[in-house]
């Protein structure tokens, strides 16, 4: 395996250096063990290990999202089983260089938002800063306590043709990827435990310990037990998986902009218990989206008034708003001089050669060499893509030059780096691919120092010879191994970690609302599946010559199906009833059809993903398998037979979700809200099915079948037989499904469950024994307990309709809806979903 890699490399005469071997094909010492290992295990086992790595990640639910791609949500994260490797000697240099660069950038940041002496002295051109959209004038003179303003720093590095590591990009606003680094390492550790041990691969966990200590150190409010929230743009963000992962791993509260509000100058989390103060906000939302009042007024991802809270030091925002000014490739041209000026040292890690067009000499250099340079805007944005001059036509080049001439300060030319290749596992063999390494640095405020994660996220290009590597364009991730010296292992003094701040269980109202709907869609899906199976069976058995309208059982089942799914007119339409198959199939697979099974499951999954930080790892696995099943259902169900099979596998997976959560979830508000949703939905569906199935009396045989199906839908047929040991009787069926407090399928049981869960929720203590929601529920419970079942089981002699039953069930459903409304109002109302955030009209000056 290794030989063919080396031969390929030498004979292809690739212009790139390689991480594993010299140009002459000699393997570097730090790669020797790995090379030997790959040769030993051979292609086949390596292929198996590759699959195993993928499986580990899938099972841990590691995903990322691709923007603008309808199938881009929750894509599996791809990890190459071959790591990026650094020798301990080289790493020492990289580590030192990264600490130096972070220190340097930190000083620059402090200066730019302070007295700007670097601009006054001409060390940083004024236009480079004032023209950069990351320079936030609102953040001027706002400082964190102490000298460290830059708390998290990341950079992308690659090995240039001179064999040195070069910095390609600095990331200072809200660097991403550290969470994936942890997942990558976890998967690799499971699959290659000996390899990791033998190579003394350094552990990366200290990164987050340092981060947490620093946060505690920096907090000025509530030092003992700071509430830390991670502000995420939400489930559609590229790296949302990581936001949820880091939150649960670190004990942060995962929050979206809508979960937070500024009041009295403080930032508050809207929870089901009311507002809770937030002391630290780790931000994964880009700077100008963080506060629509002071920055982009069209942002719905931020918190209105956040900047003012920062100004008052009532909340700590990490990284501080304004840090993005350092994400400026133009700055790279000035770093060597700045480093000597500020630190009295030479810059250890060079940046990729950069010419800032804001200076006449550099501008003319860029124009003369434009075809061999990458042209980038100093501000990274979706509209500002980097272009390689060599790939442009004459006309495009002229256009670009015109654009640069109009505003030269906004552009840099950068050398096209031919960075090194590293072995990658592609199409079942080792191939050389260009790779980029992202490093992670965090402030260690206790020691007034910076700590570098010994590892990081490497990415390699899927294509040969491709330079631009990112996950959005399809890069493959790699674990990064920093090899330790054997004697070092364990030699480091083990520092006591400060006691983990107690994580108080708070539930943001939005999360509460999602859990409530999660429960509701779960039950809606389950009831839909069970009823649909009855309907499909009955349809298959039906005599084709008899019109459905003449078939009371099938007709009733279909009508009830329309009622339970809320897809009117559905089967109440004669033309649809004549040819019911398309409607039946659409009810199974059509995600666009509101009320269909696919729609309910999709909604169930959507709510689950939005609260994924609250669900266990095993739950994620089940969710992923439900999601897979849903995809299969959407794509492959075209016949009644297939629909039936699909329902069978789906119900099993849904049941797995039930089982897991009943066993595993701690009995806290999360659990209670999920169950309130579940039982409200069960009770409503129970009523709808009874009302639909038992609305009319037909011939004896049909009545019996309908009662049987009703019991089956509620999984109570066996119970009935066991209890009554008699023929099916209407009052027996009703009594089992409505009155038996020990039957989990009985209405009364479901209502009592709702009440049990409701009473655990925090009450605002309005002095009354029961809150409004419990009063409504109690009314329903009492009505059921007092009902006259024989009277309900009696059909009107003239019409043969069960009018008393229908009217009674309607009353109960109304009370359930009212209960649900009150719960909503009481616990989720400050999600403000009925309020729109808008900009106030601005008066023109005339």
């Amino acid at each position, binding site marked *: 395996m290794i030989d063919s890699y080396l031969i390929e490399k030498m004979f292809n005469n690739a212009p790139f250096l390689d991480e594993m071997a010299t140009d002459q094909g000699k393997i570097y010492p730090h790669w020797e063990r790995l090379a030997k290992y790959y040769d030993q295990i051979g292609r086949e086992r390596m292929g198996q290990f590759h699959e195993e790595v993928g499986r580990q990640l899938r099972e841990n639910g590691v995903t990322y999202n691709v923007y603008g791609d309808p199938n881009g949500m929750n894509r599996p994260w791809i990890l190459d089983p071959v790591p990026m490797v650094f020798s301990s000697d080289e790493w020492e240099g990289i580590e030192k260089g990264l600490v130096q660069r972070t220190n340097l950038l930190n000083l620059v940041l402090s200066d730019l938002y302070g007295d*700007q002496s670097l*601009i*006054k*002295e*001409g060390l940083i051109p*004024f*236009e480079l800063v*004032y*023209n950069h959209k990351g320079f936030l*004038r*609102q953040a*001027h003179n706002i400082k964190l306590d102490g000298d460290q303003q830059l708390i998290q720093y990341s950079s992308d590095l690659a090995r240039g043709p001179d064999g040195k590591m070069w910095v390609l990009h600095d990331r200072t606003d809200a660097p991403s990827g550290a969470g994936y680094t942890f997942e990558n390492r976890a998967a690799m550790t499971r699959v290659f435990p000996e390899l990791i041990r033998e190579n003394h691969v350094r552990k990366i966990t200290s990164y987050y310990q340092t981060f947490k200590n620093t946060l505690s150190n920096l907090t000025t409010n509530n030092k003992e037990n700071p509430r830390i929230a991670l502000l995420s743009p939400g489930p559609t963000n590229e790296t949302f998986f990581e936001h949820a992962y880091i939150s649960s791993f670190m004990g942060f509260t995962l929050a979206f902009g809508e979960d937070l*509000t*500024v*009041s*009295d*100058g403080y930032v508050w989390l809207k929870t089901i218990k009311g507002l809770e103060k937030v002391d630290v906000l780790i931000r994964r939302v880009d700077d100008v989206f963080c506060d*629509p*009042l*002071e920055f982009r*007024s069209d942002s719905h991802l931020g918190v*209105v*008034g956040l900047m*003012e809270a920062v*100004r*008052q030091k009532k909340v700590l925002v990490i990284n501080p708003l304004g840090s993005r000014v350092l994400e400026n490739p133009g700055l790279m041209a000035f770093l060597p001089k700045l480093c000597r000026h500020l630190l009295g040292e030479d810059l250890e890690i060079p940046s990729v050669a950069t010419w800032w067009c804001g200076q006449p000499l550099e501008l003319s250099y860029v124009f003369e060499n434009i075809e061999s340079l990458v042209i980038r805007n100093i501000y990274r944005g979706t509209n500002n893509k980097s272009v390689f001059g060599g790939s442009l036509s004459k006309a495009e080049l002229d256009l670009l030059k015109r654009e640069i001439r*109009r*505003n030269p300060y906004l552009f840099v030319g950068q050398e096209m780096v031919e960075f090194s290749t590293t072995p990658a596992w592609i199409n079942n063999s080792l191939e050389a691919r260009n790779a980029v390494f992202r490093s992670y640095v965090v402030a260690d405020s206790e020691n007034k120092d910076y700590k570098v994660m010994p590892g990081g996220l490497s990415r390699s290009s899927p294509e040969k010879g491709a330079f631009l590597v990112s996950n959005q364009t399809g890069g493959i991730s790699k674990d990064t191994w920093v090899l330790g010296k054997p004697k070092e292992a364990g030699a480091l003094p083990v520092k006591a970690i400060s006691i983990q701040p107690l994580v108080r269980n708070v539930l943001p109202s939005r999360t509460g609302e999602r859990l409530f709907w999660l429960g509701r869609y779960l039950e809606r899906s389950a009831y839909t599946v069970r009823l649909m199976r009855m309907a499909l069976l009955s349809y298959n058995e039906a005599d084709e010559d008899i019109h459905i309208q003449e078939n009371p059982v099938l007709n009733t089942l279909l009508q009830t199906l329309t009622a339970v799914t809320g897809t009117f007119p559905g089967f109440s339409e004669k033309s649809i009833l004549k040819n019911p198959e398309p409607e039946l199939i659409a009810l199974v697979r059509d995600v666009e059809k509101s009320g269909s099974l696919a729609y309910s499951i999709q909604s169930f999954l959507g709510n689950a993903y939005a609260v994924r930080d609250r669900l266990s790892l095993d739950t994620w696995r089940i969710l992923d398998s439900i999601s897979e099943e849903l995809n299969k259902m959407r794509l492959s169900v075209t016949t009644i037979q297939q629909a039936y099979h699909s329902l069978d596998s789906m119900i099993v997976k849904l049941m797995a979700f039930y089982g897991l959560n009943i066993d595993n979830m701690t009995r806290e508000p999360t659990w209670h809200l999920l169950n309130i949703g579940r039982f409200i939905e069960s009770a409503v569906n129970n009523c709808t099915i009874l009302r639909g199935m038992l609305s009319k009396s037909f011939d004896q045989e049909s009545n019996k079948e309908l009662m049987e199906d009703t019991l089956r839908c509620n999984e109570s047929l066996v119970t009935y037989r066991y209890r009554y040991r008699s023929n099916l009787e209407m009052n027996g069926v009703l009594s089992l499904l409505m009155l038996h407090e020990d039957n989990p399928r009985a209405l009364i049981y479901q209502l009592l469950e709702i009440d049990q869960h409701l009473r655990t929720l925090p009450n605002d203590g309005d002095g009354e024994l029961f809150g409004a929601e419990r009063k409504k529920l109690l009314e329903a419970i009492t009505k059921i307990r007092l009902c006259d079942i024989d009277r309900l089981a009696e059909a009107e002699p003239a019409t043969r309709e069960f009018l008393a039953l229908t009217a009674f069930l309607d009353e109960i459903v109304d009370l359930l809806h009212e209960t649900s409304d009150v719960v909503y109002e009481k616990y989720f109302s400050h999600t*403000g979903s*009925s*309020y*729109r*955030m*808008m*900009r*106030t*009209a*601005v*008066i*023109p*000056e*005339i």
Partner: protein
Amino acid sequence: MRYRVIHVTKYIYEVPAMLCHNLMFQIPQDLPFQAVEDYTCEISPKPSFEADRSDFFGNRYRYFSVERMHKMLTVTSKSTLELVAPAWESADPKATMHWELVVEWLHSTAASSEIRQFYLESHHVQFIDGIREYALKSFLPGRPIMEAMLDLNTRIFKDFAFTPGFTDISTPLEKVFEHKKGVCQDFAHFSLACLRSLGLSARYVSGYIETFPPPGKPKLVGSDASHAWIALYIPGLEWVEFDATNNLLVGDKHIRVAVGRDFSDVTPLKGIVFAGKEQEMKVSVDVQALDEEEVDS
């Protein structure tokens, strides 16, 4: 001249709003040719939280939030000020520096960032096609900067028609240039774009000006408006103000409130509100010159 200014802004909500956060740039400051005798601000309903701050450009502003249901928000700013004739009124425009030399000086570190920042593009002030050419017709080679500026001011006044309602704050400068119509802030933005495209530093000034009714008609209460003009940096004279809307070199009749790169830096009142439905907004401004008797009484 002494003036009293009353500036009332009202937001009326169809369905009560539950929360709003606002930034208010309506606090005039003591300046070389302007003394503030008195300033008060009333906000109704009473804000839950308020704080006075200074921004990057040295303006004072107020942040406030109203954190309860309200059907209407009213902000009333009242100020009494005294203005004196600015020094630049007596300057000889022909004796000012050649504009190219000013550009050269601005682009060196000899000039401070506080001044230099106003030659860059900004949100409302973009270097649209043809704007530099338009400006160069006044800024002829070797011409003294103030003389050229007065010429530009007059050309804009003549070329553009004051047309309320044709533009709003989101109207792009291209459209203003194409149709040559707009209101004071459009003319100010246009002037700024002309000057900055040449490399000169010029900033937006927001404030008030007294207006006069047509001859024989009484002046209506609330008929004045907030106004906008520009200030150009001229070495030796510093920030010299010009009003293209009225073809004026600003004297002692322009009451200054705030300066910035453009309107978006100094919007008199802006906010984010959580409301159910539409909002209606009303503004009234009264600028009253106080004569001697009134001062005595």
